[in-house]
């Protein structure tokens, strides 16, 4: 396990964005977003990010658009697991939306749980991801992680 720190420009979204609105790179909230977002950008959202159905089509669209990380005041449990499992770092960080404005650059330390706004120096503490989740992210998601695990360790993943 190594540390995971991501730095990038943010796009800020509101509360209660459900799976249906996330589909098609946030199409339900901002149809133009997919043309504005650049690889490496970070998505910041308010409370209850990823409510509703568990269909993976929507979170995969964020990953395909090159979004480097998701941070929200709160994230539905299944959504946070899904994002990490498809290789997109996601953190629940209460209060994050209160310290950032659209376009700010932030730095997220997934090991310590600290999120820092590089423009104004303010910070908030969120989830510290466990070693397993960091390992999964390091490998690009659960599928590549599982594929690599056997070869790396030469021991069964099961048991």
């Amino acid at each position: 396990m190594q540390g995971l720190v991501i730095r990038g420009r943010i796009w800020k979204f509101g509360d209660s964005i459900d799976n249906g609105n996330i589909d098609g790179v946030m199409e339900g909230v901002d149809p133009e977003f997919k043309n504005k977002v650049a690889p490496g950008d970070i998505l910041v959202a308010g409370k209850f990010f990823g409510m509703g159905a568990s269909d993976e089509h929507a979170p995969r669209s964020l990953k395909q658009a090159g979004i480097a990380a998701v941070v929200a005041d709160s994230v539905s449990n299944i959504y946070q697991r899904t994002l990490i499992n498809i290789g997109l770092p996601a953190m629940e960080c209460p209060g994050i939306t209160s310290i950032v404005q659209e376009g700010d650059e932030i730095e997220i330390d997934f090991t310590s749980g600290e999120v820092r706004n590089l423009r104004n120096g303010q910070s908030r503490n969120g989830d510290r991801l466990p070693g397993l989740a960091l390992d999964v992210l390091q490998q690009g998601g659960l599928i590549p992680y599982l594929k690599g695990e056997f070869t790396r360790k030469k021991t069964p993943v099961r048991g």
Partner: protein
Amino acid sequence: MGMTITEKIIARAVGKEQVKVGDFVQANVDKLYIKDLRFSKKEDARGLYGVLLEVLQSMGTDRVWDAKKIITNLDEQPARTERRTEGQEMARKFTREQGSILYEGEEGGIGHNVIVEHGHVKPGEFIVGADSHTCTYGALGAFATGIGFTETVGVLATGKIWLKVPLAIRFELRGRPGPCVVGKDIVLWIAGKIGYEGAINRTLEYTGAGIDVLSIESRLTLCNMAVEMIAVNAIIPPDDRTVSYMREVSDGHFKLYQSDADAEYEQSHVVDLSRIDPQVAAPEYPSNAHPVGDFRGLKIHQGFIGTCTNGRIEDLRMAAEILRGRKVRPGVRLIITPASFMAYGLAEKEGLMEIFRQANATVTSSECGLCVRPSLAAGEVCISSGNRNYRGRMGPKESSVFLSNAATVAASTVTGEITDPREFL
């Protein structure tokens, strides 16, 4: 510090004495449920089985972690879309090659009902399912939560899942529910109280003397709709009724867990069941719940009784009691879809089907049915015994869905407007 029943089950699945709220843990799964649609190529062009076989190959095997713990069900019978036929074909192939369990045809219905009725859900188990309403199984004292596509592949390959131990909210139920008040009304009332996101990433625990009087069916409804409050899981600590139900449907081997007296809850609420009226949730959230009387006179075009929430025998009996000797109002349609063929057969034996026929209701074969398939035209209104009333859930976005118990649906189709079923008793 004591533990809640959810924490105890997670700790057992993790192989530890104790877990704490907020811990990220890796748990060993006791059962995995997969619905047919998850086998389609919608979420990944290789399909669930295709991705799984790649993973298994890299692990030097072609076998899943434990075929006897995997249950698949065909939720739509017959399949009506190419996605569904694709999913069902792969579900059958997977079952054949891996030796897992599949329900379809006369043994089937809606997966969540079928696996409960066949005794696959046991108290104390750690269960995950590739469908958001997997939380239903908590009614029998199990931990159960929904998982996504990639996680399903992970569980199939390793039998493990990682998750964060959730905060707990306790609802202590007291008193006795009045006539025509069942699990659906209680859970809608609770959703109305705490709001759509009221249980986000929490476990919901229902306890108290009020639970004693609730049927297993009502308990399943209480837990089924926990995901409508974005809970991780919902759970009812097992009691005598749970144990006698489990002896009926399973081999009787299971472990009972109870919450400790000093377990920690983020919130505790008391609910007096005797003060709850039959509830109706207006569009577009299940938490938009109010007493049925608030909607008096609201015109409807369709009633629907079915789904994993309220298509069980208790619901069919309640509907039949209202419909006995009455008819669905001309110009209004009532569609009844028993949640499983077991419930269908029982309804037939009890003469309920004859009552539905006499009332001019349409009875369909057992499946998820209209809950996930358009049946409304623009401007039409449906009152449904299901769980979701989001915009466009049952038709174009100009159609709307109200949620209630099965008796309220039946009564409303007799009058053509939302009606308090107690007026018909």
